[in-house]
């Protein structure tokens, strides 16, 4: 039931420029964007970011429907941000009805905020559509090491992420099973009262958590039996290699960020 909703299966296997890029570069690119995208505040910035985002989407070789799907969970926030700006600025009125007045400045600000969100979401969607979750986990480990996080902790985080990714479908299945079991015992998850909703949620979380701990005990024994002993001496099946195209991509990310900051 919930397996369909677990969107980590978002990654689409394909051969494209974006798929072939080093995952570390893609994650770093997002990091750079996170810092600079606040500066988007002019028509020039919006046009340059739009062109850049469309180019990235085309380089991913994936159809538009994948990107539209990613907007599904965020449309409300985009709409909220747009409407919030509409009524919050002074300027020349362009539309007036009863007590509602929309000014040119308000319209422009709404557009800027909406585009900021859209760029951030679309660019991170390019990352998730073109990078497998396991590669993301390894990329995170490498980047943390670059930023002087102790090797052992970086490895532990990466391992936690790998285990989490592996167990998301298992836990989703378990959640489905527990919900059905509780319903058969008379639990009503459609209760309109808040107290009823809370009871329902707690009756799912507690058994899920206990079941997760049981699985954890079994898994840790299995891992140790197979010789797992932390990061020391551990090698990877897939080793990342930094190519010229990766440097070029990172450079374009920095260049576009600097461009929108300056203008």
């Amino acid at each position: 039931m919930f397996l369909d909703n677990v969107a980590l299966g978002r990654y689409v296997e394909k051969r494209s420029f974006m798929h072939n890029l080093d995952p570390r570069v893609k994650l770093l690119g997002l990091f750079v964007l996170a810092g600079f995208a606040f500066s988007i505040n002019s028509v020039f910035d919006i046009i340059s970011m739009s062109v850049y985002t469309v180019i990235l989407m085309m380089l991913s070789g994936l159809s538009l429907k994948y990107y539209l799907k990613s907007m599904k969970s965020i449309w409300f926030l985009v709409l909220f941000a747009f409407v919030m700006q509409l009524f919050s600025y002074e300027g020349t009125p362009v539309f007036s009805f009863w007590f509602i007045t929309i000014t040119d400045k308000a319209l422009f600000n709404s557009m800027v905020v909406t585009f900021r969100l859209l760029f951030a979401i679309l660019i991170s969607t390019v990352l998730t559509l073109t990078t497998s979750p396991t590669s993301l986990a390894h990329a995170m480990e490498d980047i943390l090491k670059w930023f002087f996080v102790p090797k052992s902790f970086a490895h532990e985080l990466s391992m936690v992420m790998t285990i989490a990714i592996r167990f998301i479908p298992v836990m989703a299945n378990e959640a489905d099973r527990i919900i059905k079991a509780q319903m058969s015992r008379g639990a009503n998850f459609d209760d309109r009262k808040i107290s009823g909703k809370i009871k329902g949620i707690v009756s799912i979380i507690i058994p899920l958590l206990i079941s997760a701990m049981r699985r954890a005990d079994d898994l840790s024994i299995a891992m140790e039996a197979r010789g797992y002993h932390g990061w020391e001496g551990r090698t990877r099946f897939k080793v990342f290699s930094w190519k010229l195209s990766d440097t070029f991509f990172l450079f374009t990310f920095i260049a576009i960020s600097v461009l929108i900051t300056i203008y």
Partner: protein
Amino acid sequence: MKTKRIVYSGLVAALYVVLCTVFQPISFRAVQFRVAEALTVLPFLDPVFIPGIFVGAFISNIIGGMGAWDIWLGSALSLFAAWLTYKMPKKALAPLPPVLVNAFGVSLYLSPLLNINYWYSVFFIGVGEAAVVYIIGLPLLTVFSKYYKKQ
């Protein structure tokens, strides 16, 4: 027992992501009622859950967050809040760090991003987070502490 710590964290991270997905209609909105945040009280019982909360938030933000800021900054704030929760002296105070860190921290990037008042953002995030962490998280902590043996 290092392996056990990693695995416990991994499964809590998986659970965080699943809860975000199962209760998606009330997650990822302007006033976020992210039910999975109830798990942020777990580090009070045992620090092994700290990386799990960070990774769970990281993956959930990749899936359904607001992009780059949520992925990096939002997850880092979750890590900090989880560490503070572990340091809390009393059970009743355990849900406080996620509420304060998220309300004041997330608003730091959310308010310039959405061009909204900082305190307005603090209020909405704080209310959503406090509702989940105190109403669901605290009872969860009380019940789960009976079953859980510290690693």
